[in-house]
């Protein structure tokens, strides 16, 4: 169990699953970057972050819902939580509202699990705060305008818990891991700051660079 002081932003989870160095740059080093600002889909989030709710009969929709989990040590906001009306058997006529988190993403579905993990973490927060069980949620991708249902099975929950633990280890260490240059660096909005190609071991060192510059000068 974590205390409120120890909570880390929930959005850090998806950064961690994507790349530990990216996560460290954002959450340890607090790098500020306009690219990241826009890449995180600020514009898209604005319409769902209004904190308003609406009622559509069998579905209630809450936006910009504050969340936290002391088990995972995370706090943040859910873009949208839908509450689906579930009628009990006709004899009792008891109605319950089943929470169903929906996360909006600007781009297209990704190959790794980072979006699913983030959504699952939201579900775990909601379970903890509402004392209920949540089996499903959905991801909505702006680029494809498609909604995918996500099932919070044991495997995904385990991955989410592991990611949260690793996130706490990383942030507490205060150390930014070196880059591992790979294909995914092309889709990273922080590559200008991370310099994966330059800094990856075996590449141009500063000493070599200075020597090279000065030797070109030699007559």
């Amino acid at each position, binding site marked *: 169990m974590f205390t409120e002081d120890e909570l880390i932003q929930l959005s850090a989870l998806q950064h961690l699953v994507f790349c530990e160095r990216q996560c460290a740059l954002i959450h340890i*080093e607090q790098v500020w970057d306009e690219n990241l600002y826009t890449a995180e889909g600020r514009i898209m989030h604005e319409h769902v972050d209004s904190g308003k709710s609406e009622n559509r009969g069998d579905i209630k929709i809450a936006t910009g819902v504050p969340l936290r989990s002391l088990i995972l040590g995370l706090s943040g906001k859910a873009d949208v939580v839908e509450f689906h009306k579930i009628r009990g058997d006709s004899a009792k006529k008891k109605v319950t509202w089943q929470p169903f988190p929906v996360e909006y993403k600007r781009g297209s579905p990704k190959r790794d699990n980072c979006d699913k993990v983030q959504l699952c973490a939201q579900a775990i927060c909601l379970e903890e705060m509402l004392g209920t069980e949540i089996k499903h949620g959905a991801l909505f991708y702006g680029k494809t305008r498609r909604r995918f249902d996500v099932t919070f099975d044991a495997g995904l929950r385990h991955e989410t818990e592991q990611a949260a633990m690793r996130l706490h280890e990383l942030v507490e260490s205060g150390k930014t891991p070196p*880059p591992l240059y790979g294909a995914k660096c092309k889709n990273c909005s922080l590559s200008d700051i991370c310099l994966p190609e330059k800094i990856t071991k075996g590449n141009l*060192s*500063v000493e070599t*660079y*200075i020597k090279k*510059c000065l030797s070109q*000068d030699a007559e």
Partner: protein
Amino acid sequence: MKRLLNTLYVTTQGAYLTKEGETVVVKVGDDTLGKVPVHTLCSIVCFGQVMVSPPLMGFCAQRNVSMSFLTEYGRFLAKVQGPVSGNVLLRRQQYRLADSADESAKVARSVLIGKISNSRTVLRRMLRDHAERLDNDDMLKAAERLGISLRKVQSAASLEQLRGIEGDAAHHYFSVFDNLIISQREEFFFKVRSRRPPMDRVNCLLSFLYTLVLHDIRGACETVGLDPAVGYLHRDRPERAGLALDMLEEFRPYLADRLVLSLINLNQVKPSGFKKLETGAVTMDDETRKVVLVAYQKRKQDEITHPFLNEKVSVGILFHIQAMLFARFTRNDLEGYPPFIWQ
């Protein structure tokens, strides 16, 4: 690489800046002089009697737009600081490095290699482009001496030695600076560097440009989370931006000195645009200051290949790149600080 954003220079006395939605509005009395969307700006610099509304200050702080106030003559007065945030671990490491004599000497070496190498390149370029109009012998000698200084810097161990070598190098470089002025030589001459106050037109231009570049570098340091006040070659002194001054060294010859020379040599500034005060100090008039500001902004839009990153970037982004490289060195991603070396 990051897009080059603009700096808004407000030189109109009595102007008032306010926030309207996502834009900065410049007014004088009831007249609106201009509206600038904030996402196109990286900094706002106000000269003299210019007022700014607190909501705009807060908005700029939030959006990472640096805001500074200078006197009419370009002397720094104050800057707006938002809620302190950023990279605490980076700053702590920056201070640790500054506390170590060896680490400080290492940074100072890099900085001076950049400065002296770029100074030499300025001389060599001028020799190449204007050989027929220059005193070649003196220039070649000075360039050679700078080469010797460069070698000395690479083997110097202490800050003390490094500062000595820098003093010599600056002396060699400025001893031939007057030779680089090829038009309006009667009115624009350079004998010796004078700063407080500048005693001739060339020094007045140099000081003003150093101030402008320093302001941009300070902003770049703050943007990447470094503390511009704590330097290595420049020891901490109240009122002095040590790190920004360290990083200015590479850019003095490459950016400021060359711009001053081209303003004079292309007759873009006129002798009549300067005024001698009773004490002999020289200041420039509003018109000249505007010419310099516009030329500086235009220069920042030129493209260049960054020698370390091998990427095409705008000149105006160089400060940001160097600050970012310094931060990556501080955080141990790079084994040294790669200065900007102009080829």
